[in-house]
């Protein structure tokens, strides 16, 4: 297996892009990544996307995007694993280059969620769950996370404001990211007075519906020197790439309050890279809901079961904390265009490791971890990147 490096990144600001279609936002990210890598030719395009079929009536998405991007005679395929589609596509790209099957691959995560009504998008997102035994009973995706959060608060005697710190940290960091959807800090009062979506999850616990696309160019590390010339900011190596699954339905989990797939995929990634949790400079976790931040920290070795929320209360998750998370806003503030999110995490990790994160830059960032979750914890993909 060859070591794989990222030599180009691109992203469109996350938001409601009424004036652009899925092909436009994907091309924006791909073009930026290819330009930075200084190449026009790739062997393959892998697209991470969840909802193009159900919301846009557009499948065969990777070929549509390759066509629009001027990438002809290349391999193009869409990778879908709900909200973990972005990182899953990166893993396929990583495998293609690591194996020697391809030399240059571009991976793009893209999602267009604002072309449809809120109810249609909510129904689309619920397809990440078991259609016959979860969605059929009217539970939304927020609802599933609310069921976890309610039980967590009951079992560990957690106060309702315990999760505020996750949201406040994400917004404080997102305010420094020009690509974030909400570039605005929020107060504790704003959190406490936010309207409920599904009790106990309020709007400030939840990431927004939005559009976005982010891309990266992958090459073999031994060939990265060819691309890193002139003003190029430098290659970032993928030190680990791992994925694990759990039951698709929340109600079938052995322990609905523990992200076993996050535990397994992060352990695999720690072994692959030789990195320990203490070596990680920052952690782009999947804060689609504040409860997921707590559970992710518990499953990856940063907190004991039931104690992840203490890290927010103690502000150990801030830019100068023990384990900075959501450093450029996370899913909460940068936004969560579902199939694109995993690639935004990768792009932001590369920005941090190059020292190009601007006002959101973490001091001495040498190792970054990203973790992308599909469903209510059913598919979890972990990557570790280094400079």
């Amino acid at each position, binding site marked *: 297996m060859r070591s794989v490096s990222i030599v180009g990144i691109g992203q469109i600001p996350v938001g409601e892009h009424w004036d652009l279609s899925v092909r436009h936002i994907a091309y924006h990210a791909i073009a930026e990544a290819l330009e930075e890598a200084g190449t026009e030719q790739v062997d393959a395009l892998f697209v991470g996307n969840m909802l193009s079929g159900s919301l846009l009536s557009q499948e065969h998405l990777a070929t549509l995007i390759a066509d629009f991007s001027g990438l002809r005679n290349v391999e193009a395929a869409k990778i879908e694993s709900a909200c973990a589609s972005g990182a899953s596509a990166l893993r396929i790209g990583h495998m293609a280059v690591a194996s020697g099957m391809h030399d240059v691959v571009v991976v793009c995560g893209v999602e267009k969620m604002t072309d449809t*009504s*809120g*109810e*249609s998008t*909510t*129904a689309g997102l*619920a397809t990440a769950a078991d*259609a*016959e*035994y*979860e*969605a*059929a*009973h*009217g*539970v*939304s995706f*927020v*609802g599933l996370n*609310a*069921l*976890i959060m*309610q*039980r967590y608060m*009951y079992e560990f005697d957690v106060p309702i404001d315990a999760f505020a710190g996750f949201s406040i940290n994400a917004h404080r960091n997102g305010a420094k990211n020009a690509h974030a959807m909400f570039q605005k800090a929020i107060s504790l009062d704003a959190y406490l007075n936010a*309207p*409920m*979506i*599904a*009790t*106990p*999850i309020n709007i400030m616990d939840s990431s927004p519906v939005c559009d976005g696309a982010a891309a990266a160019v992958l090459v073999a590390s031994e060939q990265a020197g060819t691309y890193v010339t002139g003003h190029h900011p430098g290659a970032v190596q993928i030190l680990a790439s791992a994925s694990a699954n759990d*039951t698709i*339905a*929340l*109600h*079938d989990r052995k322990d*609905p309050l523990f992200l076993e797939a996050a535990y397994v995929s992060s352990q695999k990634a720690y072994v692959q890279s030789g990195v320990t949790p203490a070596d990680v400079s920052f952690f782009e976790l999947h804060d689609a809901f504040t409860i997921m931040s707590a559970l992710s920290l518990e499953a990856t070795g940063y907190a004991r079961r039931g104690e992840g929320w203490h890290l927010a209360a103690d502000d150990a998750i801030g830019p100068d904390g023990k384990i900075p998370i959501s450093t450029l806003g996370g899913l909460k503030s940068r936004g969560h265009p579902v199939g694109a999110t995993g690639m935004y995490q990768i792009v932001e990790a590369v920005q941090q490791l190059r020292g190009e994160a601007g006002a959101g830059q973490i001091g001495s960032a040498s190792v970054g971890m990203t973790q992308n979750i599909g469903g209510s914890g059913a598919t979890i993909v972990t990557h570790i990147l280094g400079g």
Partner: protein
Amino acid sequence: MSIASLWRTRQQRYSLQGEICPDCHQAIFPPRDVCPHCSEAAGPLHTMSGRGEVYSYTKMFNVPDGFLAQRPYTVALVKLEEGPMVTAQLTDISDEDVEIGMPVEMVTRKLREEGEGGEIVYGYKFRPVLAAAD
């Protein structure tokens, strides 16, 4: 869900028909081909009692297409007395009275209507155990 899918799952939605694993004797709902507990072949069919308790719950204000007429409503994870957990709506109860651990029983209710002239989907919901039923 399609008509075919609704027809296939009718015994599960109308009577909580699951299985008892012949190897490890654990209850399974809905029926599977492979036992999730011991990985041996699952079966034979077994109908659950319909009794259980609330493991967690949420009152949902933003709901998916198809459920707009009912909102807001409460969805729960119900731990059946045989062991499996199911996702279902609570009914015949006011929001303030819902508590984790409360005993509930299965009832058959309308889950959704697929618009004018469309199918009406029935299935299980859970209500507090009635005192008179004891």
